[in-house]
């Protein structure tokens, strides 16, 4: 897994791993609406891929942070942990080419996701 990401005040990490013979492709993950000073960990295929303290959505853009990870073209399990909300959410995402995954916390803290083969835009 190769990581790079952008977020305000986010923990930074870089890690590589090969996963068998499947071709690698990019999974772009964006943390979007609903984060309000949350400590957030995102795991990709069981590995910690993103960790941020006090993550906050900038309301004028609906964007909190993002990272990119190289994964094998396959079903990939994404897990989101938000400590202060005692929230742990997992979802399998089918990655068969460059994929963009948006993760938001909705009403009551429920995780909402959106998946697109195109980049997300914010204004």
């Amino acid at each position, binding site marked *: 897994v190769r990581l790079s990401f*952008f977020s305000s005040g986010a923990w930074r990490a870089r890690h590589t791993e090969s996963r068998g013979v499947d071709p690698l492709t990019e999974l772009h993950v964006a943390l979007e609406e609903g984060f*309000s000073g949350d400590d957030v960990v995102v795991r990709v295929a069981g590995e910690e891929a993103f960790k941020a303290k006090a993550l906050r959505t*900038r309301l*004028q853009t609906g964007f909190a942070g993002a990272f990119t990870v190289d994964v094998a073209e396959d079903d990939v399990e994404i897990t989101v942990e938000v400590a202060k909300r005692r929230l742990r959410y997992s979802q399998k995402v089918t990655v068969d080419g460059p994929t963009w995954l948006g993760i938001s916390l909705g009403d009551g803290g429920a995780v909402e996701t959106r998946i697109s083969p195109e980049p997300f835009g914010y204004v």
Partner: protein
Amino acid sequence: MAMIDERGLDGHTIDDLDIEAFEAAGPFPGPGPVIPVPGPGNGFPPVQVIPFSGLYKPQLIKPGALTGELRIDVDGHFPQMTASGNLRSGLISAGHWIAKLTATGPGAWTGGIYFKNGSTGLIPHTKVTITAVKAKHATVTFSGGGAVDRVMTFPWASTAFHDVGLEFDSVAGTSAVTTVDTGDHPNHPGGLADEVLSIETVYRRAGFKVTKSAGDSVVPIAGAGVGARWSDMEMHDAMQSHWSQFANKAQWSMWTLFASLHEQGTSLGGIMFDDIGPHHRQGTAIFEDAFIANAPAGDLNPVAWVRRMRFWTAVHEIGHAFNLAHSWQKALVDNGHGPWINLANEPEARSFMNYPYNVAGGQSAFFANFGFRFSDNELLFLRHAPGRFVQQGNAIWFDHHGFEQAAVSPEPALQLELRVHRPGNAFAFLEPVDVELKLTNVSDEPVLVPSTCLTDTDGMTIVVKRQRDDARQQRSFAHLCLKSIKVVLAPGQSMYGSVPVSAGLDGWNIDEPGRYLVQMALHLDDEDLVSNPMTLTVEPPMARAEEKLAQDFFSDDVARVLTFGGTQVLTAANDVLEEVAVKLAGRAPARHAQVALGRPYTIDYKLIVPDFSEGLSGAAAEGIDGAPTARIEVQAADPARAKAYLDRALLEEPEAAAEALGHIRYKEEVDRFADTQAEQGDPGAAADTLATLQQTLEVRNVKPSVVAEVAAKQAAYARALR
């Protein structure tokens, strides 16, 4: 030039330029001017119209009179069939009201008031009946609510609801798209007028009189750092250096920068970047080379698509500067900041504030129904919300993008008085100003009031205005979490408090010599009380040394130390206060300084210090989050040092001290000093201190019940001595 459209505009448009010509002519003595207006599309003859909609307000205000503004919104672009206004008494923008209207005849409407905000005691009514004569005046009859009808007439002032100034600056090499031809892209609503639409026109149709600053310019890239990608801080710096109208205050004016990319990269098409400092929402940026430059694959006219998207983005970001939230965030409350009225999210709205690609059917579905406009709820906010929620640099970003509905309240049973006890209300240069509050039940019935209403600054709005300057709202340094109980205030009975008004989060409000006006609104459970406007004078410096001291004195740190009553951490501020205490000894500023310097020594003072544990190769021990841990260090009280400061401040010249601090604060400080003396085992000193307090309050004709309370406590300490 004689046809008048009494039906309202009904989709016909007042040409933007004609609005200015119309207003330039001023109020008209005859039947009113007629404006030639282009029809909604090709082939329509011009329609001659005069709108009822707009702002009505007096040009001259008689001091002390009840006055205000009226906004009628019944015709013109996207009419909301709404009237709103405020009634003002003195400095503080008093009661704000909004009513939904129904037409009852030509130039006549009626409707129920459904929103009140601010000093709602000025608006006990529940209904308005309005008649208007175009371009001349409107008369409002306020009725209902068990109150006597009030009839007010407002002269016509403008076809716009507010004025706003825009300035567009662009980074060298960008195209700065500020207009769009609405018919250029084939995917648009069938009935949409084919016209060249500018950003200014969009906001004129939203209800603003838009003026473009003459300062539009090209920003050299080197002006805010090397590189094509811009950080928020660089843009904030660029705003301050390149915006010809920049001022660190609230004003109906804003700056837009057209640049290539934000440091976030191509995923950010634009941003209202100004959520920095005390005055938010003054600056926005559009990133032309971000994703908004990429038309969808197979689009029929990609060049027109990109131009429309860049135009849409610019209007969207400017909308944020007017405190508009995204369409799907209308109901969102974030950290206590939420909508101005109860609003529902509008995820499918065809509005400048929605994301085109997030609606059902995606961007093509959005633009197929997009009328280049804001939603009705957004127009209601822009036109009728209290101006401070909308004005750039005023309410912080996302605060009051909606507002709470106030309860209807009766005529005030309470009276709030501001006062100081000194001749001519004159204060020395460098002297902090504490104002006394007196809340009196002026009704014939007992009234329940919160016990903390005169100490909880969150429940107060304090406005300070220096002569010839704008009024400034003071934001308190401290937000107290107080347990409040209801206490009974009998008819004629008063309660008292004291509040510092010289400085707050936005800096010093009272600093330079001159005349000031202070007024306050107290927000109680079901009504707002507005105080008397109180004038005070700050005298010129008596010597050059005071002017030199002022350079260090009027700092944020010194303001905080004086407000919180001392520090052992902000040592630079203490050094300044020490200098004031020495150089201005015997004068009022020195007494305030001595109190702040002495109080920290009266108690065991707790300090939070980083905990650098040994045995970790010199590194700080880290908590679980990687941050250094901390420990509490206690510095023991120093009674002798405290006494040296506080004797000079409070007891050696007690009458001068009482005048400098005000009766309430003086009593509190001496009381507190006596208590610490007793706690430290010296009840005799405590009794002596209180004897001085008792005598001073007696001489200054303070209420006998207060003097008796001090006397009883003094006697108790004296008994303890025996």
